[in-house]
Structure formats: structure tokens, C-alpha cells
């Protein structure tokens, strides 16, 4: 059996002490260990941000790309080699400002990738700017008079866009977060895990304390049914999205299953050469 340590490399994270991102990293490592994923079959793609550094702290194949594009990269990887476990991760700016379109298209395309949002409702790496997930009246260097734009609600948007797996976690609820990530990886199709991961340096509003007071734990709600779309939507609206646990899941065929036979080889295993016969047949079409 693998242990968390197997997925840990010897790089010291450059995150601030107390940053929520440490816990997300740890949870992902523990989840990978629980699932016993061979580390060479695990690929983590990230965007740019404090969160983006996560892929560099995993002992696994890691791809730290450009800002907002962790999902297209992840989808390309999964389509190339469906035998891999592919995790995409990134900040709230990465996934809901510059990368919002990719996030929503990844959801509807339903390629089997797990997307972990390290959501601190602020741009950490640029040293404190308002994010599309920052709450109204949030003050930063870029909103000195307070933000006036309504924040995006990732859960509601994903649900409205037909996501097959939506969960929310919190850095300080390690066990739940690990459990969520395990299930998200197991889900066949796209899964979204929105993690409240406090930025201790630039977000003095949505702090650990703040979340602890506000978050509703769905696992503790008797009889919460994760297969009920309407209930999921209501829960998100009623809690103002401040809830943790698996919010919604629905089984369905993933993209690859829809375009290929189950028995099809990963693209990486295909023969690259055409036979002369095949080639002649293709050439005939041009006559």
C-alpha cells in the first residue's frame, strides 16, 4: 500500500505559513495513497498562482502551465492516455477569471478529470487583488473602495452547467476533504472540488475562523441525497454556497466512453504507421 509520503517530493513549498493550500496538497497526497495510484500514472496539472505551485510539490508527473489553462492541458493529457489519473488544480482567479470558459466547457465536455479549485477568494500570488469569487465590498489593492461585482458561485454555476460531480471542501476539514477527493477521482467523468483554502496573508475577511462559523457540513445533515439536483441547488442557494461535502453526483458516460469503445487503446499506445493498403484507400478518396 502506498502512503502519503510516497507522493511527497523534497521541495519545500514557498507558501506562507498557515496557507490553506498546504492542507489541499496533503489531502491530495493522502487520497492518492488511499487509492494506491501508481505515482507514475498520476498527473497533476496546475495554472499560475500560489495554488499553481501545488503540482511542483507532488511526487508525480506535474505540469505547471500558464495562467488559467490547467484544464485544457489536463483534458489533452487524459484524451492522450486514458490510463492516467489526471488532476487539474488551480486558484479561484485561475479557474474563474481568466479560465472561466475552460472550466465551463470542461464541465459539459465531461472528460474524466478531477478539478480541484484552491479557492481563497483573492489573488494571492499577485499580492492581493480582488478575484471574481471575492465577496462584495471586499477591499484590496485593486478594489480600494470595495468590490461592487457579485461573486461567482462555482457550485451553482457548475450545477447549472450540468456537472456530474460537485463537491466542496475546506482546508481545515482534512478527513472530509480527503474523502471528497477520493470520490471525485473515482467518479467517471469530470469532477469539480471547490476547496475553501484561506489565504492568511491577503484575505483578512474569509479567514479560518470565518469559515468555521459559516460552513454547513452536508455529511452531518441526515439524509442529504447527493443525487437530487433540485435539492443540491436549493442547498447551495440556502447556504449561500457555504457548505462542504459532496453536493451532487450523477453517473453518466464520460466523453471518452462516448467516442470510443471501452476496449480502445490509449492514444499513446497506437501504431503510428499506416499500412500501404490503408494509405492507398485513403488516397482513393481524392480520385
Amino acid at each position, binding site marked *: 500500500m502506498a502512503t502519503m509520503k510516497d507522493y511527497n517530493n523534497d521541495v519545500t513549498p514557498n507558501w506562507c505559513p498557515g496557507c490553506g493550500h498546504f492542507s489541499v496538497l496533503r489531502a491530495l497526497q493522502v487520497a492518492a495513497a488511499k487509492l494506491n495510484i501508481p505515482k507514475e*500514472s498520476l498527473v497533476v496539472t496546475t495554472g499560475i498562482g500560489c495554488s499553481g505551485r501545488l503540482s511542483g510539490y507532488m511526487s508525480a508527473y506535474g505540469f505547471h502551465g500558464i495562467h488559467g489553462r490547467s484544464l*485544457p492541458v489536463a483534458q489533452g493529457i487524459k484524451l492522450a*492516455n486514458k490510463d492516467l489519473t489526471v488532476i487539474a488544480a488551480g486558484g479561484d482567479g485561475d479557474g474563474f477569471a481568466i479560465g472561466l470558459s475552460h472550466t465551463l466547457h470542461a464541465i459539459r465536455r465531461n472528460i474524466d478529470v478531477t478539478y480541484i479549485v484552491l479557492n481563497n477568494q483573492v489573488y494571492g500570488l499577485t499580492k492581493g487583488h480582488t478575484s471574481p469569487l471575492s465577496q462584495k465590498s471586499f477591499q484590496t489593492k485593486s478594489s480600494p473602495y470595495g468590490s461592487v461585482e457579485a461573486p461567482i458561485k462555482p457550485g451553482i454555476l457548475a450545477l447549472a452547467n450540468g456537472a456530474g460531480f460537485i463537491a466542496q471542501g475546506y482546508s481545515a476539514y482534512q478527513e472530509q476533504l480527503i474523502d471528497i477527493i477520493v470520490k471525485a477521482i473515482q467518479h467517471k467523468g469530470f469532477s469539480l472540488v471547490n476547496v475553501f483554502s484561506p489565504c492568511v496573508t491577503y484575505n483578512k475577511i474569509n479567514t479560518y475562523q470565518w469559515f468555521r462559523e459559516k460552513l454547513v457540513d452536508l455529511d452531518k445533515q441526515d439524509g442529504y441525497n447527493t443525487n437530487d439536483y433540485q435539492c443540491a441547488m436549493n442547498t447551495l442557494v440556502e447556504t449561500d454556497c457555504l457548505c462542504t461535502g459532496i453536493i451532487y453526483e450523477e453517473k453518466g458516460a464520460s466523453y471518452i466512453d462516448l467516442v470510443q469503445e471501452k476496449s480502445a487503446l490509449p*492514444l*499513446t499506445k*497506437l501504431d503510428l504507421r*499506416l499500412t500501404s493498403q490503408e494509405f492507398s484507400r485513403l488516397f482513393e478518396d481524392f*480520385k
Partner: protein
Amino acid sequence: MKKNISIMIGGVQGEGVVSTGMNLMKTFSSLGYYTYGNRNFSSRIKGGNTTFTIHIDIEKIAAVSDSVDILLAMDLDTIDKYMHLLNQDGMIIYDSDLKPDIPIVKALKILPLPITTLCKGLGAPTMKSTAAIAYIGRLLSMPMDILSSSIRRRYGKKGDDIVAKNLEILAAVYENQDFSWQMLQLQLLSPQTAITRGVMMGNDAIALGALSAGCRFIASYPITPASEIMEYLGKHLPNYGGMMLQVEDEIAAVTAIIGAAYSGVRSMTATSGPGISLMLEGIGLAGMAEIPIVIVDAQRSGPSTGLPTKHEQSDLFTLYYGGHGEYPAIILSPSTIEDCFYETQRAFNLADIYQCPVILLSDLTLSLSPQTIDNLDLNKVSLDRGKLVTEMPQENTPEAFNRYQLTSDGISPRAIPGVKGGIHHVTGLEHNEMGRPKDDPINRRSMMDKRMKKTLSLDEVKEIEIFSNSNSTLFLTFGSCFGVLKAAAEASGNAVDYGKINRIKPLPRKELEAYFNSYEKIVIVENNYNGQLSKIIKSELDCHNKLRSFVKYDGNPFTIEEIIKEMGGAY
């Protein structure tokens, strides 16, 4: 007896002009003739006048004549707009229903044909294209059985009824005795060998080249004039286990293929100018992270949306100089349909060998002009995946894999996900040999040197092809201009040498230097305002006094005459 003949077909866009032209081309190609077709797009989707010009020849040619021998008009616009293109002894034929008012010009043959009447009479009003083809076949003294087998081939899949109806039209045309056909008929010389050849446009050859090169993934966003590549691969890749993914935009396209290529699959995307601009950040990532991707740029008139259905070669600058920062890239510039096929294969090899983005630079005319091609040799370009590592010696501990090892040739071993002991980190940040972020200046310098110098060895590869070696002036070009340049040089009795350059980046400096030494003057011919290739050459070589630039940027390719005139020009 004529060596070649040029036919312009004009009519309402969407009403069969293109299929008429393509069918004629395929029919002549099946007889052993060479054909070349040139489309003129209307800016409307449906309606609006469109033309298709076909050149039929017993020798290979990749240009249309400046004037036409036969003008086939399916609408009045065609007559008004293009009659002036007819040769003095040319012939204008048209659907007699049009009842045009054609000025009598000496020597001009005018031939109204009952195309609509005949089709209506046979209860097949939508088969005018077949009637038109039949009339042209008859005018060009084509045996009727050739046309009937062509019809069978073309309509076979649509069912026997359709085939029969078309054959009926054909027969009616060949039986028509209203004209003194003998007098009207044009006699083409027989083709050199009676072999059946294919008709392809550049995009077809690129797509087929990619498939043959083992490309198994394309992510793309539609755009004129590149869409046919994704369309072809979307249809055929699944049969070979591969996939086409239509994505939400060009940024997703380039980053998705970066993901797939990183995973070990030969991957590509195809776009045009606006898409290229959007992809630059991603291309830079591929350069920095040393990911082998292939990008086709089928250029159209810019800037911005420009003239999306018109020809230009104005993306060199942006591709050569790239996005922000400095990274390696390779630009191949096919000039013929055969080049499109072979150079696409080479592109995938170079990407794997040099681990960097490779751009295949096409242009609207090359991408969309159909032409007869000789058979393609599937095995001419052999497959080379460079330093790809798919298995590792057992002893290697994970994470000791130096993905960005500093080697003497600047190229490092590349492991892909799934390979045990090949685990490493990839980042667009500056990194050390293990791929980990590092901002130390010494590391920075060695990594920059490694990346920027790794393609230097390409300078030894010959990339310029020169034809006719006897003059003191060389006309050099790339892309579809080459076909026109060749035709012009031949028509001018080879008054100048001419040639094409197959790779623009890295610029073949040594070779160019040698040519600047041996020629008195080199004229760079290109379709853009700035003389982009000539400026690139001038920045790299001390050749200002010998280099001349000849450009055109009005949305159309050069005419043969324009180039001939330039060849006679007094510098």
C-alpha cells in the same frame, strides 16, 4: 492542338460552381492530365457570384493563367465581371436561359447552351452541373465513356436513380446536334502517360500527411481557411484510434495539444491568423517546457479579421518573432501540395527531435486550391521520435529523472507520464535540469542557451531548392507563390533562376549566405506589405545591397504576368 487550356466557371455561390469545377478536374486527372484550380470566394454564404478557374495541362502546373480560354457562365454576373479575362480567340459559353447581352468582339466565340432547358426537360432541374460538365467535355473532345465512368464514380453512393439521371443528361448533351461541334471543338494534346491521378488541395495533403505521420490527436477551433484539416481528421482519426477535439477557442486548442503531446501523442492544431495571435502564449509555453507540438497556420489577409477569404502571407513576422520572451521554434514553409504532405510528416519528426513547437506555414491559396498530384510515397519520410523515453532502466529512482538535462546538443531525454522512474516536473517558469523552478542567474543562462541553441544544427540541412542554374538573378519565394513563380520563369524562357525556401526558422543562414555570394541579385517574392521574409533575412545577413523585395498585398496571389514583368525589371 493545345498544350493546355484554361476554363473559368462562374455562377451563384452555393449552386454547384465548385462541384462542377472539381468534377472536371477529377475527370481530367483520371485521364492523365494535370489540373490546377483556383477559387474566388464570395463574401456571402449563399448567393453572390463565385468563380472557379481551372487550368488543364499536359505538364504539371501550380498556377492559373492570367487569361482564360473558356468562360462558362451560370449567371449574368460572371459575364459582366469576367468577360475581359477571355483570350482574343476565347469562347464564352453560358446557360441560354440567361439571355445575356454580349457585345460582339471579333474572334470571340459565343455559345449559348440549353443547360437549364435540357435539365428541366429531363425532369432534373438540379443537375445543371452535369450538363455543364458534359458540354465542356464535348467541347474538349472527351470520349463520352470517360465522363460516364466519372459520373458513376461520383454519384455511385447516391443510388442508381441518380446515376441514371445524370447519365441521361450526359447522353442528351452528346447527342445534341444544334451546333457545329467540329468547328468549336478544342483539341488538347494527349497526356504524357494515361495514369489516374488524385486531386488534392493543401489542406487535404496536410491532413493526410498528419495521419501518415502518426498524428493521433488534433484539437482545433474552426476558421477559414484551415477548417478542412480538422474536418478531415475528425472524420478519419477515429478509424485509427485517434481523436479530433473541437474546443472552445484557440487557447484551449494549443494548450490541449500541449497536454496530449506532453503525454506522448503526436498532436497538432490548425488555424489562421487570428487563432495564431491567440495561441502565442501557449506556443511560448511549449517552447519553454520543450513540448513537441505542430501548428498549421493557413494564412489569410490580415490584420484583424481582414479579408478572411482572401490570400496573404503576412503571419511570418508574428510566427518568426513569436510571443513575449524568447524561445525556440521551427517554421516550415511548404510550397506545393506534395510539400504539404511530406513537410507535415517532417514537422512531426522535427517537433519530436527538437522538442519545440513546429509551425507549418501555409496560405489560403496553397490550402484551398485543388490540383492534380502525383502519387505520394507513404514511406519517404521515416518516423523519428527523437529522445523519447518510454521505458527506464529499473535502477533509476523516481524524480532523479533530468528532463532538462544539459547535454551537448541541448536536447534532453523526454519521459512521458506512465513511465516509471521518469517522473519529473514541467513548468513555464525557468527551471533546473529536474524541471524545478529556479531563478538563479547561472542556471538561467545555461537553460536559455540550451533552448536557444538546440535548433542550431538545423543550419546544416539544405532548405533551399533552386531551379535552372544559369542566371545572375535569383527569384526566391515560399508557399503558393512558388507555383506562379515557376510558371512565370518558364514562360519568360528562364530569364532568371528561381527557387523556394522550405524552412524559414531557423533561417538557413549558411545556405543563404552562399547564394548571396553567388548571385548578383536575389529577389524575395511574397504576399505581404512589409516584405517580411526579406526583412528577416536582412536582419540575419549582411545582404542589403543584393536583396530586393517584390510584394503584393491586395488579397490576391501574384499573376504570372506581374512576375514576368518584375523579372524584366531594371534594378
